[in-house]
Structure formats: C-alpha cells, structure tokens
C-alpha cells in the first residue's frame, strides 16, 4: 500500500487547514462567548455566563431566533413542495429531456446570490415589475406594500435560492430506486398513486430528509436576504449577530448567539443523519 510518508503528505495539509481555519476560530468564538465588554469598549477576559443569560432574558433575541426558525421552516416546506415534484418528474418521466432539465435546475446556482436577491427586489418593489403589472391590469389601485421588506419577501427569495439544494438530494435518491420495484408494485395490482405512496416515496425519504436539512440549515443562517429584502419585520438572527460584531461592538454576545446557533444546527444535522439511516435499506 502507500508509505507512511505519502499518507502523511496527503492527510496533514487538509487536517491543518481545518484545524487552523475552523477549529481554532470556533474555540476562540467559544472563549469570547464567556467574556464581556467594558464600558470603555474593550473586551474583558473574565469568565461568566452573562451573555447566555442575556440571550434568553432579552425578548428581541430569542424572538428573532424563533422567527428565523419559522422563516427557515417555511423555506424548507416550500423548497420541498417545489423540489420534490420537479425531481420526481425529472427522474421518472422526463425521458430524453432529463439532462437538459437537470442543467436548467443547476445553472441558477452559478448566478451570484446578490444578483438573484436584487432581482427579487426589482420584481417586488413598490414600483417594481409585479406592482406595476397589478396596477396596469387594475387588480389593485395602490402598490402592495407587503411584497417587499417583509418576511414574505425573505421566504420567497430564500425558497428560490435553496430549492435546488432541496431538489438535488431528492433527485439522487429517486434515481437510486430500482425501476423494477415500480414495475413489481404495478404488477401486484397497485395503481400509480398507490405505487408512489407505498414504494417510491418511502424509498426517497433519505433524500427528502437531506434536502429538508439543506434548505432549513442554510436559510436559518442567512443574513443577506433579510438584509436586502426583509425590512424591520423580516430581520433574522444572523443580522443581529452581524450588527453585534459590527456597529454594536459586542463580540461576546455575538459569539454567544453564534454558539447557540451552532449547537442548534449540529443537533439538526445529527437528527437528520439518524433519520436518513433509519430510512435507507441498501
């Protein structure tokens, strides 16, 4: 096999990279979360739980966290609602157009996030494309103001951005279902609908769980969409973290919130991995 030196040469650099640029910063973050800020805007290295207490004492923080989770949950729901039928159609019925359609789902991923977020801004704004059209056809008299700078805009944009992330694992799991299982089901008298619910869907659950996790976790930590399109009512927890590390200059509290989010996400990933294992049979 490979020599020790060779194995070391290929494993050490990436390990070092992860250690220096990921584990050390996380450790620092953890330290910061137990420190505090003096009235002279300097970091005081005295260990205490104050930041974590603050987080649960001040309504704005945990309410924003809850709202972020609620937004992420809706993004997850709509991404699955759009991604699953798309993946199902592509995998089972697209035939020769499969490759082309697959590329069309992937291409938007290459477009900058900012461009896509701004695109929604021009669509949803008070003199944007949608409002102009609605007034032109006399469906409304005045521009609808809930369209932009609202949780609605955030959910819409994030759903648009993260649907491909939900689509991909679902598509992969559907592609892995042996087609003779579908035939066996029909052969045993199951209608196409029964076949879907009794065979195809159960076997695609690992993909659904992975897709749901992607959509939820990625949108939970998002701060650009709420920043650009959320307005005051659409603020998410990451925006608070950004401002704490920036203008507010309260790194310790920002670190504490970040660390809570990290734990939450790790718990979710752990849960989703277990669910995926429980539902995979190969």
């Amino acid at each position, binding site marked *: 096999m490979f020599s020790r030196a060779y194995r070391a040469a290929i494993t050490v650099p990436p390990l070092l990279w992860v250690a220096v640029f990921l584990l050390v910063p996380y450790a620092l973050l953890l330290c910061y979360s137990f420190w505090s800020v003096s009235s002279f805007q300097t970091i005081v290295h005295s260990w205490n739980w104050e930041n974590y207490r603050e987080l649960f004492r001040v309504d704005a923080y945990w309410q924003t966290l809850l709202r972020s989770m609620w937004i992420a949950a809706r993004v997850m729901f709509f991404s699955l609602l759009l991604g699953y039928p798309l993946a199902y159609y592509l995998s089972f019925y697209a035939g020769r157009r499969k490759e082309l359609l697959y590329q069309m789902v992937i291409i938007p991923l290459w477009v900058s996030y900012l461009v896509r977020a701004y695109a929604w801004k021009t669509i949803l704004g008070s003199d944007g494309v949608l409002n102009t059209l609605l007034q032109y056809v006399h469906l409304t008299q005045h521009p609808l103001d809930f369209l932009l700078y609202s949780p609605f805009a955030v959910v819409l944009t994030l759903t648009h951005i993260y649907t491909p992330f939900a689509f991909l694992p679902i598509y992969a799991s559907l592609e892995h279902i042996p087609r003779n299982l579908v035939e*066996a089901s029909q*052969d045993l*008298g*199951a209608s196409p609908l029964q076949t879907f619910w009794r065979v195809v869907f159960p076997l695609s659950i690992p993909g659904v769980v992975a897709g749901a996790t992607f959509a939820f976790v990625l949108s939970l930590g998002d701060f650009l969409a709420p920043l650009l399109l959320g307005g005051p009512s659409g603020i998410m927890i990451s925006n608070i973290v950004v401002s704490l590390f920036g203008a507010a200059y309260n790194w310790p509290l920002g670190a504490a919130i970040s660390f809570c989010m990290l734990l939450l996400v790790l718990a979710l990933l752990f849960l989703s991995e277990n669910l995926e294992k429980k539902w995979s049979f*190969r």
Partner: protein
Amino acid sequence: MNAPSLLSIRNVAKSFGKNSVLRNISLEIAEGEFLTILGESGSGKTTLLRIIAGFESATSGEIWMGGERLDPLPPYRRRVNTVFQQYALFPHLSVADNVGYGLKVANLSRTEISTRVEQALAMVKMTARANAKPSQISGGQQQRVALARALVNRPRLLLLDEPLSALDANLRRQMQVELKSLQREVGITFVFVTHDQEEAMVMSDRIALLRMGELEQVASPREIYNRPATAYTAQFIGHTNLLQAQVQDGVARCQSLAWKVSLPDGPALFSLRPENVRFASGDGVRIRGTVQQQAFHGATDLLRIDCGEGLVLSMRAASRENWTGKVELQFQPEDAIPVRASQERT
C-alpha cells in the same frame, strides 16, 4: 394440449424504433400449463414476457386472456403476476409485508391478509423469516419470497423471468424440482422464461423456442428433442450431428453415407443425435472413422469421430478412458430426422 386455452397471443410484433424485436408471434397457452419460452439472449423472450405483463405494449397484434382482451389494460388491472429476475422485493418492507403487498393494495381485510400471507409463507417454507427485511435473507430465500408474493394473489397466470439464473447450480436444480411440483399443486398456469435448455426440458409441459424474434418451434420437450423441426432447434436443444445430404430417387447421400428416405429429390438437412450413433453391430447405415476427440460427460463420453472427407460425427459411448483408434459406426435411417434449414435473420 386439449385443455381450454387461457392465454392467446395473436400476431404480436414489437419494434423499438427501427429495431424489430418480435415478429408475428402467435401462441396459445392452455389452462394449468407450464410453458417455457426458451431463447438465447436477444431473442426477444423477455420482451414477450413484458408485453404479457403489460410493461411494454406490442406494436401490433392482440393478447386475450379467458375471452377478455388483455393488451389494452395497464399492468395493475391484469390478473397476471410476475416473478422478476432480480426478485424486486421491496427493501423497506418485511418479508410478510412484501407478500401481503398485493392483498393490501386490493383493500382486503386485515384478517384475510394475514391468513393468506401465512399460508403463502408456509407454502414456500419462509414462515420463520416473516419479519426479516429482504436484505437479511439469502438469494434462494428471496426467490421463495418473490414466488409467494406473486402466488398469494391467486393470479390466473404467473410469469417467471429467469427466476433461477441468479442461484448457484445445486440450488437451481433443487428449485427446478420444487417449482415444478408447486405448479402442479396450485394449478396456476406458468409462463417461464429461460435461456437454459436443460432447465426448459426438466420443467416444461411445452417449450416455445424463440429465435431472433420469431417462434422456431412450439412442442413438448420430448417432441422438440426427438423431432426438431429446424436445424436451429436441433442444435440449440441438446447436441446433434447436422448432415447436409442430397436426395435422389429415395436415397439420401452425404459423403460416403447413403440411406433410404421418402423425400423428394433435392438437397436435405438431417439431424442425427449422438446417442443414435453406435458402434457397428447388425443392420444400419455404416461408416468407418478414427476417434478424434473425447469429452467426459459422466456416465457417457461424447466422442468426435473423423470419418474422412470432412465428415465428423459426434457419438455417445459408455464412459471409459482413452477412446482411440479406428472404429466402425452405424445408425438407423429413421434416426436421421429431416429438418428445415433455419433462415438467416437480421
């Protein structure tokens, strides 16, 4: 077969694009019959089975089952069940749930489902593994479960797509016998697809030999072996000597061989089974030759005898070491079966 016809395949043809896979297939399958569709890979046998099951639609022709037209129905409306080549058991369901699947989607009562599943599992001796997942049981056991899952629905017709090809030789022979006795027991019509001529001979009431999308011959194993209609059939089923002869005035001649026949003048092709070629003693068509090659087949040896002028005959002889030297052979004229030349097909 005098039993009433259950399945009637009428002029079925199938092509994928320009590629013609089946041509002009007409076949009557009797109630309770064990019919084997035999053919090499690419002969169209699996396609024919898939057309009967409803996974493919025929390009032309009709299929009738018990006075009802079958081919316009989707697979889930046909009283036909299939045992798939790779078994196709549902990996997320237990053995019992796999077997009960067809009954469940038919909305039968819970009690009826469980009694019938129990019976079916007992029939294939899988009761002990009812709660196992398919990935936890062996290939042979998966095969039994697949069989139970199909039979529990009491189909009028059971299709089996090379169900034994994934098993090792011993288990395969055992399953051939079990499958045959099971078929007699349940009395369901079996249509069995295989490329293994020995398997076909052991199990079938009748064999339908398919060659490049057309039926070559449909007959009982005994008849197809003893009275092959074409050169292809004679060569595909068992070993044979094909003699290219010229008939003139009631005598067929092939190199130095000559025997009486009742055929019109002209070229003719004969199939002569190796076991009908014997060492000379008494009456018969005689020829001398030298032993060229010997292949050990257990109780018998297959010898290749070079008779000169390019004529090489295969014969079966009692097994013994080192057959060599000059021999004199003979066969009876009636054992040379006239066969049609098989046309080239593309």
